[in-house]
């Protein structure tokens, strides 16, 4: 007597296998869809920028004349912006992470801060722009200068830096802390001399990645009111400024009026993407180099 009708099973089997294979192909196409978009996007941007990127483009000031326009001011603006964002965000982000991981271990204060940070991470960047506009630009009277934009950006990427630093600090093995305490070191000595140095690779990876986010971020600075006008190259944090994404924005919307502006936008995008690519590569190199040291 047969409990299983082999023929019947086989008959059901082949459509099932067929379905599985079909699904697999569909899932595969979905998975490489991103790749296709990426290729299209990069091809598009590069082909639009061909002939537009040269030393003059990098070293010239803005101009309404597409042939003469350059992004030197925007590059310097981005550099100056980072001069504000990097120290502020490292100070606040790492400090918060140390507090959460080393001092506030388990407790209400920790829960409140931690929940707050994950909610802050979900606040749209344009809302941070409004905060910056209201507090830094208007209430504090700074105006739309680099300092105001930098502080706004620093708050925007703060949650990312905090979370990355927390992970880096958590990854420092407990036995190193024990070894330090065992020598009679105090808590702060242990953090300063052992935990932070060991966490630096992880922290720097996180900081670089979040700075690259800040470099590409546009909305908060539009809201703060970066002028669309041609302005002098900034040389202090109290100057007005423009940044690469802002130039891309203005040139893109104005490309409806002047065709060449689309090329300028594409050329600026290429420079921006190269910078981001370099920053991400550095972050990845640091991450790989210092993985598994203990």
């Amino acid at each position, binding site marked *: 007597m047969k409990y299983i009708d082999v023929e019947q099973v086989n008959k059901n089997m082949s459509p099932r296998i067929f379905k599985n294979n079909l699904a697999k192909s569909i899932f595969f196409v979905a998975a490489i869809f991103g790749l296709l978009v990426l290729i299209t996007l990069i091809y598009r941007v590069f082909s639009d920028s061909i002939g537009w990127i040269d030393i003059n483009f990098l070293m010239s000031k803005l101009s309404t004349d597409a042939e003469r326009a350059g992004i030197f001011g925007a590059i310097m603006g981005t550099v100056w912006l980072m001069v504000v964002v990097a120290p502020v965000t490292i100070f606040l982000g790492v400090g918060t992470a140390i507090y959460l991981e080393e001092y506030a271990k388990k407790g209400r204060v920790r829960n409140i801060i931690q929940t707050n940070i994950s909610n802050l991470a979900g606040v749209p960047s344009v809302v941070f722009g409004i905060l910056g506009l209201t507090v830094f630009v208007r209430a504090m009277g700074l105006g739309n200068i680099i300092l105001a934009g930098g502080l706004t950006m620093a708050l925007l990427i703060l949650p990312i830096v905090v979370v990355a630093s927390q992970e880096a600090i958590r990854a420092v093995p407990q*036995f190193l802390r*024990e*070894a330090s*305490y065992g*020598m*009679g*070191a105090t808590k702060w*000595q242990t953090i300063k001399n052992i935990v932070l*140095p*060991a966490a630096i690779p992880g922290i720097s990876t996180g900081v670089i990645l979040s700075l690259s986010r800040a470099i590409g971020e546009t909305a908060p600075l539009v809201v703060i009111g970066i002028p669309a006008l041609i302005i002098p190259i900034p040389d202090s944090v109290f100057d007005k400024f423009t940044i690469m994404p802002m130039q891309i924005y203005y040139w893109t919307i104005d490309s409806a009026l002047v065709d060449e502006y689309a090329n300028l936008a594409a050329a600026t995008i290429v420079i921006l993407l190269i910078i981001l690519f370099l920053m991400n590569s550095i972050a990845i190199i640091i991450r790989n180099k210092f993985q598994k040291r203990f």
Partner: protein
Amino acid sequence: MDKESSSLNQYSSANAFKNADTGNNIVYDTQDLNLWYGQTHALKNIILPIYEQEVTAIIGPSGCGKSTYLKTLNRMVELVPGVRTSGTIKYRNKDILDKSFKVEELRTKVGMVFQKPNPFPKSIYDNIAYGPRIHGIRNKKVLDQIVEKSLRGAYIWDEVKDRLKENAYSLSGGQQQRICIARCLAIEPDVILMDEPTSALDPKSTLKVEELIEKLKKDYSIIIVTHNMQQAARISDKTAFFLNGEVIEYADTNFLFSTPKDKRTEDYITGRFG
């Protein structure tokens, strides 16, 4: 079991009794120590004297509280959240469990060597100089001297003298462990606690560390936790047998291994359980 018979009374060396009576040579005097990890009662009514310039071995099956006791001696156990203690541990006549006792001072005098070698991810030099530096010694020349002296003290100077700037993790496990011991010696502690210092090492490195311990005991009081009965017998002067958080027997090492008083000690050292 009553506490009396569990510890001191079985101790037979007349000389040591004299020391215990004068109180001079006792480094650690543990009285009625209890410790809880949350609900787990990990140490129960521990009474144990520890003497200067001796090696005291702590043996017992896994989970009996050896590490816990050792970590209580430098209050490292406090790093675990939810730990409670009762009783007293007098170190040089001062109760270290008293909250007013400065734990950093205690740990400066009581060095610790861990089961797994745990050098800092820094140069060999910086590893050794760590202790002196955090205690305010900054002078380069003095630090150089301390580093050399400590590495010599741990009998590893000749092996590493040409590579002091290299990362400590470039050394072998056995060398790392001796670096950790040297790191300990750099602040000239009074007592050294060692928690299974050789269990992560190969036989050759183990032998080196054991030799080192023998030499160190001239200058330091050493308390060593070990699973290795031969090791305890070889290097220790006194042995305490722990079981389920209690001290079952404490005696001269020779005495305890040759004529254990308690049946459970005998079972353990003859390998019938644990």
